[in-house]
Each structure stands twice: as structure tokens, then as C-alpha cells.
């Protein structure tokens, strides 16, 4: 019986995967088209979106306590609303930058003869982890406000930073390959 169920699952999974994966026939254009744009996206991610002080400030408890301590009762909800919008916008931008870098990496990696399956697998798992954390964080921010999402934000930032490092290494490898290629000519 268990065997039969597992075969039914495999057959159904294949049909579902084929339906969803091959339905999209239009090519998705690359957002990052060359390595200098990738370097810039990486710089923006590392220097503008992921620094600790920036994330600490965005999800700061002190700011929230300060807003709550004000005499005017409208200040705290207004602060919460605006900080929530800023945090969600930060999350969206971080996600977009990481997705663009990942897209660039994949488009580049697929043509490299020295593609390393273990690195690729690690990168894909980290990317999946980052996406899950971002989804979780977005839900937390929407449901509980930005202050309570600090710890998940920390995980997401560290996942994004890891991805950034791998991407940086991939870009360095590309540079080496290009330089070696140029010297060989």
C-alpha cells in the first residue's frame, strides 16, 4: 500500500511539475546584464541595506519607546504605521537586490565549465532559507509591527549577507576567468 502511494505521488508530482514549470514559456529578461552592474548591486546590498546599524535602527525598540512616551496619543500609531511601511519597503528592496544577484549568478554559472554542484546546492539552499525568512519577517511586520521582528530580521540579514559573500566570490571567480581568458588570447 505504501509503495502504491509513493508511486502515485511520483506520477502526480511529475504531472504537476510539468504543468507549472513549462507553462511559462516567455523568457524573463535579466535585470543585471553585466558584472559591473552586479558589483554595484552587491555594493548597494552590503553598504546600504545590510549594515547592522541600519537594521538596528529600523527595528529599534528605543524609537518605539520614545514614540510611546510622547504626550500626544496619535504619535505611537503613526510611528508604528510609518516604521512598518519603511521596514516593508526595506525588506522588498533587499529581496529584490538578492533576487537580482541570484539571477545574475545563475545566468553566469550555467555557462561556466567549472560549475561546482556543491557550491550551487549550498547557494540554492541559502537562497531558499533567505526567501522563507523574508516571507516570515514580512508576515511578522504586518501582524505585530516592526519592533518584534528584530530577531527574524537578524537571521534574514545574516542569510542575505551569506548570499552576498558567495555572490562576491562568484564575481571574483568570473574576473579571474576573464583575466585568464584575456591573457590567453
Amino acid at each position, binding site marked *: 500500500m505504501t509503495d502504491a502511494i509513493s508511486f502515485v505521488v511520483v506520477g502526480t508530482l511529475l504531472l504537476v511539475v510539468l504543468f507549472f514549470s*513549462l507553462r511559462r514559456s516567455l523568457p524573463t529578461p535579466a535585470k543585471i546584464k*553585466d558584472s559591473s552592474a552586479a558589483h554595484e548591486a552587491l555594493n548597494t546590498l552590503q553598504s546600504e541595506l545590510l549594515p547592522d546599524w541600519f537594521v538596528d535602527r529600523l527595528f529599534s525598540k528605543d524609537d518605539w519607546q520614545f514614540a510611546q512616551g510622547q504626550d500626544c496619543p496619535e504619535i505611537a500609531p503613526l510611528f508604528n504605521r510609518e516604521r512598518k511601511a519603511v521596514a516593508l519597503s526595506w525588506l522588498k528592496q533587499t529581496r529584490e537586490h538578492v533576487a537580482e544577484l541570484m539571477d545574475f549568478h545563475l545566468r553566469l554559472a550555467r*555557462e561556466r565549465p567549472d560549475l561546482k554542484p556543491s557550491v550551487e546546492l549550498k547557494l540554492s539552499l541559502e537562497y531558499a532559507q533567505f526567501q522563507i525568512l523574508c516571507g516570515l519577517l514580512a508576515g511578522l511586520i504586518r501582524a505585530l509591527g516592526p519592533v518584534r521582528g528584530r530577531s527574524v530580521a537578524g537571521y534574514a540579514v545574516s542569510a542575505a549577507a551569506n548570499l552576498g559573500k558567495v555572490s562576491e566570490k562568484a564575481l571574483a571567480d568570473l574576473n579571474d576567468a576573464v583575466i585568464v581568458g*584575456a591573457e590567453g588570447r
Partner: protein
Amino acid sequence: MLTQTLWWLGMALELTLLLRAVRNNLLKTFPIFYTYLAYVLVESLVRFYVYVQFPSFYGLSYWVTQLGSTLLGYGVVWEICRQAVARYPGTFRMTRNAIVLIFVIVICKVVVSSLTSEGWSLAQTTGELERDFRTVQAFLILAIVGLLVHYRIQIGRNLRGMIWGYGFFIGTSILNLTFRSFLGEVFQIWWQYLQPVAYVVVLLIWCATLWSSHPNPEPETDPRIEQDYQSLVAATRRRFRQARAHVGRTVRP
């Protein structure tokens, strides 16, 4: 009556596909796939002859020829893999390794299950063997499709149709063979209609997508690497200039 109609319809569609392939020069592009299709056409004719002349041998002829097409199916999967990622050397190497790994793992599992199973009948055992082989192919197709999607590799209409059709065939075969193996003779009445109907759907998918030649699009980023290097040099020089200006301002009294 319905079974015979489906039978003749299937053979007519197979013949049409082969004639279109000759006309559009697709035989050179997909040699294994069309060999498979030609084999299935001959197989259908042989089965029909046996069915009419020696009905008592039909079961034997069915399962023996079916095993041949199942094994040829591995060639089709290999052709799909080669056509899809051969232009991407790294991805091709990775897909090939994944295919070999999956193949070895699942074949080991199949051999162990076959050796440990009890009872033997040609239909039951060959049916289960076919189901197991088809399951290996399902995993291989899943791996190929997964890598195509992951690495955003664009494929042409012909290859997409081949994957769609063959994947649909494998998926429906696994379901049919599993129900047949699990429910036994009760499912036989459904089996004789479901299997040919699914196969006719597969042939219609292939007719629609392999009617004319649609080669795979060329890789989009390959020639850009040199350009990348030039723009990288330009960007680095720009950053250098900015840093130099910044340092210059800092050290100036």
C-alpha cells in the same frame, strides 16, 4: 471498437509525426526520439498482427515489446538532457552527474525490490518492472526540468513539446501501472482504455509542438563576457578615481 479506433489513431499520428520529421529535417536533430517513435509504430503493427492472428500470444508479445520501448525511453530522456543543456557545459556536466546518480540509486532500489518480492506472473512482474523503470525516468525528467527552471534555460518549442509529451506519458503510465498492480484484474477494464487514450493525448501534444522546426534559442550571455570585462575595468577605474579624489581631499591640509 473504441480500443481499435484508438489503436489506429495512434499509429496514424505516429506515422504523421515521422513524415513531418523527414520533411522538416528533424530526424537529425532528435535521432533517438524518432527512433523511439519508429520502434513504437513497428511495435503497434506487430502487436496488431499478433492480436488478430495469435490472440493467445498477445499478452506475451505486449509485455516483451513494451520492455523494449521502456528501455528506449532512456534514450529519449538522454536526448532531452543533451538537447536542453549541451550548450551550457557546466550545467550539462551537473545534469549528467545528477542523472547517473539518480539512475544508480533507483536501479539499485528496483533490483532489491524485485529480488525480495514474492510470486511471479509475466504481466504482473513485467508491469511492475515497467512501472519501476518509468519511475526512474520520472525522477530523471524532474531533475532535468528542475535544472532548466533553476538556471533559467530557455528551450525551443520542439524540445518543450518533447518534455511535455514524454513527461505526461511517463506520469500517466506510472499512475496506470500502479493502479493495475495494486487493483489487479479489476483495473484491467479501465486500463485498456486509459493507457491508449493517454498515449493519443501524448501524440497530439507532439504533433502540435513538433509539426515544424523550432530550434532552441541561442544562449544569451556567452559573447558578453569580454564586454563584461571591459565594463568591469571601466567601473573599477571609476571607483579608483573616486577613491583617489577622496584620499586627495583627506590628505590636503
